C-alpha cells in the first residue's frame, strides 16, 4: 500500500509499525504460519495446554496481605469465601528487606504494605485452617525468599504435608529487583547463588513447587517496552538456568519449575503478540539451545493481569474499567493465573470492596462472556499472527544484543539496564505530558475535580508494637542452644559454598527470625551497593 493510502504511520511502544489492514501476504512475509502449531504442543504459541480454559480456567490470585498474620488470614478467608482459588501473599517492607520488626530501619513500616513476618509462628498463624492442597499459595518475596520459603516449607511439614507433593510458587526473582522494585539485600552474584540454592533444593525435595516466578512485570513498570519486558525476562530466566546447570543438575529436573509474571497495560494487541511470541521463543530456546526433552521445561507458565503503570490517580473509578480490559487481554493471551490491580491500589491497600470487585471482574469474564469457550480465539488472524512473528524477531534481536554486551547479569551489575529503563520511563512521561500517549483523565477528558475521596486502609502504629511484642514472646521461648547451633550451621554452609536451604530450614524450625537468617547471610555474602544512576 502506498504511503498516501496508509496515512500517518502508527508505531507500537515496542517499535513495530502497524498496517491499517492485514492480509495473508503480510503473514507470509513475516515468516508464515508454520511455527504456530497446536495448543499444548511445541512451540506452544497458542497456549501450553491442549484444551486451555475449556478444561481449567485461570486461577484467581489477588495480591493481599497487611498488618499481622491474624489480620491477613482474615482477608484470605474473605477472598476465598468469595470464590478466589489461590493466594498471592504480600509481605511488609521490613520482611522483604530481611529485617526484623524491631530493627531501627523497620520503624513505621511494620505491617504497612503487607503482612509482617518475623518467625515461623507468623507463617503458621497466617495459613492456619487453609488447605494447602486446595488453595495454591504464591509468596511475593524476593530478597528474603530464602527464610520465607523455608518457613513455608517448615509450616507445611509440621502440618503433615509431604514436600514431595506440595504445590505453590515463590516470586524469588532477585535479578529483576535490581532493575525495579528494589528489595535486594546481598550483592548480585551471591543473590544469584541463593536463588540457585532454592531451585536446587526444590528440584531435589519439592519438585512440584515452583521456586521462581521470573518477572518482566516490574521491569515494564520501571519503563521498559513490552518487547524489552519479555527480552529482559527471558534473559533473566536463562541466567537462572545457566547458574543451576553449572551445578550439574539435569535441565529437565528443574527448568519446569520456572514460571513467569508479566505486565498487561498498554496496547491490547501488542500484549497479545508479546505473550504469543514470548511463549514460542521460550520453547525454542529451551529445546534448541538447552536441549530440553520434557515439554514441561519448554512451557512458559505465567501469571498476568496486573499493570499498575496503566492505572491513574485521576478519576479512580476509571481503573475499574481498565481492570476489566486488562483481565480480557490476559485471558486472550492464555495466562494460567490472573491477578488484577484493584481500582484503589494507586492510593492504598485495596479495601475489601475493591478486592471483591477485582474478583467479580474475573468471574464475570470467566462465566458470562464465553471467553473460555475455545482455545486461543485470536489464532489465525492475519494481524495477530503477523505481529506475533514480528514481535518474536524483535525480542530475539534484543536478547542477542544483551548477549553481545556481556549478558544480563553484567548489565544489571553495572546498572546499564536500570539506566535504560529509567531513560524510557522519562520519555514515556514526556509523551504523556505532550498528549502523544493518550491517558483518559490525565491528558484528555480531564475533569476539574476535587481529589476523590478513596477509602484508605487504616494503618495503626500500635500494630507495629503488637508485632514487636509477639516477636519478643517468640524469642523468649526459643531453645537458645539449638538456635545458635542452627545459625552456625547456616554460616558454615554459606561460607563453604554448600546449599544453604537445609540449614535455613533447620534454623527457622528453631524459630530463627527473618533478620537472624538474613543477618548471617549478610555477614558471609556481603550487602549490595546500588550503582546510583538515573
Amino acid at each position, binding site marked *: 500500500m502506498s504511503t498516501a493510502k496508509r496515512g500517518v504511520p502508527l508505531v507500537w511502544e515496542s517499535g513495530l509499525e502497524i498496517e491499517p489492514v492485514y492480509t495473508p501476504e503480510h503473514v507470509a512475509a513475516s515468516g508464515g504460519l508454520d511455527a504456530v502449531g497446536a495448543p499444548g504442543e511445541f512451540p506452544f504459541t497458542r497456549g501450553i495446554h491442549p484444551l486451555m480454559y475449556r478444561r481449567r480456567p485461570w486461577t484467581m490470585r489477588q495480591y493481599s496481605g497487611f498488618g499481622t498474620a491474624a489480620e491477613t488470614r482474615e482477608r484470605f478467608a474473605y477472598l476465598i469465601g468469595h470464590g478466589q482459588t489461590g493466594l498471592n501473599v504480600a509481605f511488609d517492607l521490613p520482611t522483604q528487606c530481611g529485617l526484623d520488626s524491631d530493627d531501627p530501619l523497620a520503624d513505621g513500616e511494620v505491617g504497612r504494605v503487607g503482612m509482617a513476618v518475623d518467625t515461623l509462628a507468623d507463617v503458621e498463624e497466617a495459613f492456619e485452617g487453609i488447605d494447602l492442597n486446595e488453595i495454591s499459595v504464591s509468596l511475593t518475596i524476593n530478597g528474603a525468599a530464602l527464610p520465607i520459603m523455608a518457613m513455608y516449607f517448615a509450616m507445611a511439614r509440621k502440618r503433615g504435608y509431604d514436600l514431595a507433593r506440595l504445590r505453590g510458587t515463590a516470586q524469588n526473582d532477585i535479578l529483576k529487583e535490581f532493575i525495579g522494585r528494589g528489595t535486594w539485600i546481598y550483592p548480585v552474584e551471591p543473590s544469584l547463588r541463593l536463588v540457585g540454592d532454592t531451585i536446587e533444593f526444590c528440584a531435589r525435595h519439592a519438585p512440584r513447587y515452583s521456586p521462581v516466578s521470573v518477572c518482566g512485570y516490574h521491569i515494564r513498570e520501571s519503563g521498559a517496552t513490552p518487547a524489552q519486558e519479555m527480552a529482559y525476562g527471558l534473559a533473566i530466566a536463562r541466567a537462572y538456568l545457566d547458574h543451576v546447570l553449572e551445578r550439574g543438575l539435569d535441565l529437565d529436573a528443574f527448568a519446569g519449575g520456572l514460571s513467569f509474571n508479566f505486565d498487561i497495560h498498554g496496547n491490547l494487541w501488542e500484549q497479545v503478540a508479546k505473550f504469543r511470541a514470548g511463549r514460542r521463543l521460550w520453547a525454542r530456546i529451551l529445546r534448541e539451545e538447552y536441549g530440553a526433552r520434557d515439554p514441561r521445561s519448554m512451557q512458559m507458565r505465567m501469571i498476568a493481569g496486573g499493570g499498575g503503570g496503566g492505572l491513574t490517580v485521576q478519576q479512580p473509578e476509571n481503573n475499574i474499567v481498565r481492570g476489566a480490559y486488562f483481565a480480557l487481554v490476559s485471558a486472550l493471551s492464555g495466562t494460567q493465573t490472573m491477578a488484577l490491580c484493584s481500582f484503589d491500589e494507586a492510593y492504598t491497600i485495596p479495601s475489601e470492596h475493591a478486592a471483591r470487585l477485582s474478583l467479580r471482574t474475573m468471574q464475570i469474564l470467566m462465566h458470562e462472556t464465553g471467553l473460555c469457550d475455545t482455545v486461543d480465539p485470536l489464532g489465525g488472524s492475519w494481524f495477530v499472527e503477523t505481529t506475533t512473528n514480528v514481535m518474536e524477531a524483535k525480542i530475539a534481536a534484543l536478547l542477542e544484543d544483551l548477549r553481545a554486551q556481556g549478558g544480563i547479569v553484567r548489565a544489571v551489575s553495572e546498572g546499564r539496564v536500570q539506566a535504560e529503563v529509567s531513560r524510557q*520511563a522519562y520519555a514515556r*512521561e514526556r509523551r504523556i505530558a505532550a498528549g502523544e500517549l493518550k491517558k483518559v483523565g490525565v491528558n484528555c477528558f480531564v475533569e476539574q475535580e476535587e481529589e476523590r475521596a478513596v477509602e484508605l486502609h487504616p494503618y495503626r502504629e500500635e500494630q507495629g508494637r503488637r508485632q514487636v511484642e509477639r516477636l519478643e514472646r517468640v524469642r523468649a521461648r526459643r531453645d537458645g542452644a539449638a538456635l545458635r547451633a542452627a545459625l552456625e550451621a547456616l554460616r558454615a554452609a554459606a561460607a563453604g559454598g554448600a546449599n544453604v536451604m537445609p540449614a535455613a530450614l533447620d534454623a527457622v524450625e528453631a524459630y530463627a527470625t527473618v533478620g537472624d537468617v538474613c543477618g548471617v547471610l549478610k555477614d558471609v555474602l556481603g550487602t549490595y551497593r546500588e550503582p546510583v544512576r538515573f
Partner: protein
Amino acid sequence: MRAPIRVLIAKPGLDGHDVGAKVVCRALMEAGMEVVYTGLRQSPASIARAARDEGVEVLGLSILSGAHLPLCRRTAEELARAGGADLLWIVGGVIPPGDREALRALGVDAIFPTGSPLEAITEFIRARVEA
C-alpha cells in the same frame, strides 16, 4: 546570572519504588538544575547529612510506601540537627490529602502527589529559590 539550583532527591525508608524519583531527577536536570540522587534505603540522618555536605538548596523526598509521616517526622528532626531546617523541602509520592496538613506542619514546603505534572515541580522550585 546565579549558579544552577542544586537539588537532593532522596528515597527514605525501605520503599523500592524509584521510577518517579528518577523521572523527577531528569526533569530537574533538563530544567537546568544540578541534581544529586541518593539511591534507595536512606535513613533520615544520612539524607540530612547529604543535604548539608552537597550544599543543596532544595531537598525532595519520594515516598510511596505510606510511611511518609514517620519518615518526614524523623527527617525534620535530622534536618534541624544538621542545620538544614531552612532548605526548600518538597515531598512526592502516594500522599493522601488527609496527611498533607500534618506534613506541612513538619516543615514540608510543597507536596506533589503521584500524577503531578513535572512542570509544576520545576516551576515551584524555580519560583521559590529565585524569589
